[in-house]
C-alpha cells in the first residue's frame, strides 16, 4: 500500500513540476518565434534542448516509480 502510494506520488509530483516548466518554456519559445519568425530554427533547437533538460527531472521520478513497483 505504502509503496504503491509512493510510486504514484513520485511520478505525479515530478510530472506536475515538469509540466509547469515545459508550459512556461514552450510558451516563451512560441512568443519569441511569433515576434521574430526569422530566428525560428535556432529557437526551435534551443527549445528542444530545454525540453530535454526539464524532461529528465520528470523521467527521474518515473524511474523511481518503476523501481518502487518492481519492489512490490
Amino acid at each position, binding site marked *: 500500500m505504502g509503496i504503491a502510494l509512493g510510486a504514484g506520488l513520485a511520478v505525479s509530483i515530478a510530472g506536475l513540476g515538469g509540466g509547469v516548466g515545459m508550459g512556461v518554456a514552450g510558451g516563451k519559445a512560441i512568443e519569441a518565434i511569433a515576434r521574430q519568425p526569422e530566428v525560428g530554427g535556432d529557437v526551435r533547437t534551443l527549445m528542444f534542448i530545454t525540453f530535454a*533538460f526539464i*524532461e*529528465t527531472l520528470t*523521467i527521474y521520478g*518515473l524511474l523511481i516509480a*518503476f523501481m518502487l513497483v518492481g519492489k512490490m
Partner: protein
Amino acid sequence: MIFGLEGAYFNLGPIPVDHLVVTQWVIVAIIGLLAFFATRDMQVCPKGLQNAFEWIVVWTNDFFTSLMDKEHIAKKYAPLLSTFFLFILCSNYSGLIPGAEHINGFQPPTSNWNVTVALALITVLAVQSAGFAEHGFHYLGHFVSPNPLMLPLNLLEEITHPLSLTVRLFGNIFGEEMIIAYMLFLVPFLIPSALMALSVLLGAIQAIVFTILSASYIAAATGEGH
C-alpha cells in the same frame, strides 16, 4: 526484467547474446547495407539512393556546424552524431512492428538500460577526447575553473551528463512501451494505435534530443573560454 539480461540464446565468449543484441545486429546490418548500396557505384550526377544520402550528409554537416560553431569539429564529429541518430531512430521504431510487445524477440533495444548506458559512454569518450584533441592539456584547466573550489561540482557535472542521457532515453522508450502494453491489455482494439502514433513522434524526438545534446556537450568541451 528491467535491469537483468535473461534468456540468452548463446554465449559469445563472456558476453551473453540475447534478443536485444540480435535486434541491434539487424539494425546495424540494415543501416550498413543501405550505406553500402548507396555508395557502391558513385556518379558525379547522383540519383536515387546516392542523392538521398548526399542530401543527408550535407544537411547534417550544415546543422552541426550551426550548432557547434567550429566547422572542423562539426565535420569531424558529424558522422558519429548522425550514426547515433540513425541507430537510435531505428531502435525506437523497431518496437512499433505490429504485435511487437507480445513477441519476445521484438523489444526495442533502447528500452533496456544496458544499451543506453553504452551509447552514453560512447558520448563521454567522444567528449573527453574531443576536449583533449582541441585544447591539449589545457583542457584539464576547465575542471578547476573559475576556481579550484568548483572541482567537485565540475566532476559531478561530467557524471550527470551521461546519467541524464542514459535515463532520458531509457525512461522514455521503456515508459512508452509499458503504457502501450498496459493499453493492449485493457483495450485490445483500436485505442492502442493512437498511442503508437504518438510514439512514432516520441521516438524521433528522443533520437534528435540525444544527438543534439551529444553535439552540445562536444561543443562545450571544445569551445573557447577555458
